[in-house]
């Protein structure tokens, strides 16, 4: 079952001087529980696609079919935690905005905080937490409203490499455990291959789909383990050539 269908998406940006075709003819079908990565050269319009999908931006052409009952959650590059709110209050933000501060939902947030190691930091302010913990808190804030699809826009690129590996492992496990579908936009090829079931490679602007890879790894498990799979290098090489970086 496809829970999200995107067909022939097109996006044109208008400025005073000219118009820029950012995305052209982009299509995507997402299955329940699937993890899709979108990679491409920087500035190619990857993030544009995500903001259109979650309704922050309007498409110029194309069709997006999403079940009305499905909810999405959006996670950005920086954690955007509010410095004047405690971690607990930050995690409740989405529920507050949607007027859904029910006992049951609050219990769910508490459970998430407990499960993902932030129990002792509920009363702390974001400035007292490490980058990884902050990113986890931001994920819990997104999960609190019980989204069915998660849109992750370069969610780890503000973190240093070590933290990044650990946090992407964490986030992946959380998403899988809560049985969510996800689309991640990233410029990090290894991140895409190690996390996703499917990788969509985009061309330079205007971005079109260049290639789609079903990632089939032996002993597929968590992202860090997946990096050790013998097919990893094969996919990496393929995608690298697709993107055709000019240094």
């Amino acid at each position, binding site marked *: 079952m496809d829970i999200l269908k995107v067909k022939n998406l097109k996006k044109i940006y208008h400025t005073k001087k000219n118009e820029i075709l950012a995305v052209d003819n982009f299509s995507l079908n997402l299955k329940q529980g699937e993890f899709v990565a979108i990679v491409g050269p920087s500035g190619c319009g990857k993030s544009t696609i995500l903001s259109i999908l*979650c309704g922050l931006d309007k498409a110029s052409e194309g069709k997006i079919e999403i079940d009305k009952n499905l909810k999405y959650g959006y996670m950005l590059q920086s954690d955007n935690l*509010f410095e*004047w709110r405690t971690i607990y209050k930050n995690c409740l933000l989405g529920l*507050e*905005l949607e007027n859904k501060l029910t006992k049951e939902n609050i219990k769910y947030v508490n459970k998430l905080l407990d499960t993902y190691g932030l129990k002792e930091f509920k009363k702390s302010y974001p400035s007292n937490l490490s980058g990884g913990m902050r990113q986890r808190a931001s994920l819990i804030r997104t999960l609190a409203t019980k989204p069915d699809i998660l849109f992750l826009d370069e969610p780890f690129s503000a973190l240093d490499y070590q933290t990044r590996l650990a946090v992407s492992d964490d986030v992946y496990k959380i998403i899988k455990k809560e049985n969510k579908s996800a689309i991640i936009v990233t410029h990090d090829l290894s991140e895409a291959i190690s996390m996703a079931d499917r990788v969509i490679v985009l061309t330079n602007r205007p971005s079109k789909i260049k290639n789609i890879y079903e990632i089939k790894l032996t002993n597929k498990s968590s992202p860090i383990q997946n990096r050790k799979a013998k097919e990893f290098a094969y996919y990496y090489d393929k995608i690298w050539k697709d993107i055709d970086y000019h240094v």
Partner: protein
Amino acid sequence: MYSLEHKKYLKKIKLTNFLIRFTQISIILIFVFLWQFLADNNLINTFISSSPKSIINTIINLYKDGSLFHHIWITFYEVLISFLIATVGGIVIATFLWRYKFISKVIDPYLTILNSLPKVSLGPIIIIIAGAGTKSIVIMALFISIIITIINVHQAFINTDKNKIRLLQSFKAKPYQIYFKLILPSNYNNLINVCKVNIGLIFIGVIMGEFLVSKAGVGYLIMYGSQVFNLNLVMTGIIILAIMASLMYYLIVFIEKRLNK
């Protein structure tokens, strides 16, 4: 227990802080005593420069005839009223401009013109329209402070982190939710700073207004003193103003600290 080095470090900080305070107090004491010394020995013309002793005498006399606190109260009252209207009004208008970008763009040049206009030039018009009284003084102070308040607060509001706004929008937040959950709390420090700047501006406006129209207040004391060539009274007025302005400033700092707890 701290190490010896740490104790030395703490001692050094204490000593530096003490020296700063000591020097500060010394400067004012030396200034006051030198002033009095020069006045006593007729090295300066006390008719023009007055002297600390005569200032104190003037204050005592004003206190005795009951007018000291009357004047202070009048000025304080005018400052307080203008401050409240300017700050609250400025923030409300800035909010409005933040919400409706079209209007903010339309009135932008008018705000700029009003901001660069020397407001004291409006004095005569204000007096004719509002009459020679407290009303005119408050309007004067408002003109001086509210325009810059609107500009500064609006600037702060539109500089709020765009990503945080996107985040709220991804939760389908409505404009009023964005305002109360993000814009106001994230600009808390900016608003406090606007208050601090406003106190100074409002004093300028109120004193200027009192120069023009008043029958009472510290600005009136100064004006009256200069008209009858009683420079003791002028100096006394200035000293009282300095004390009032700094007290008001520290009052805001105090409130800020209480709110931060």
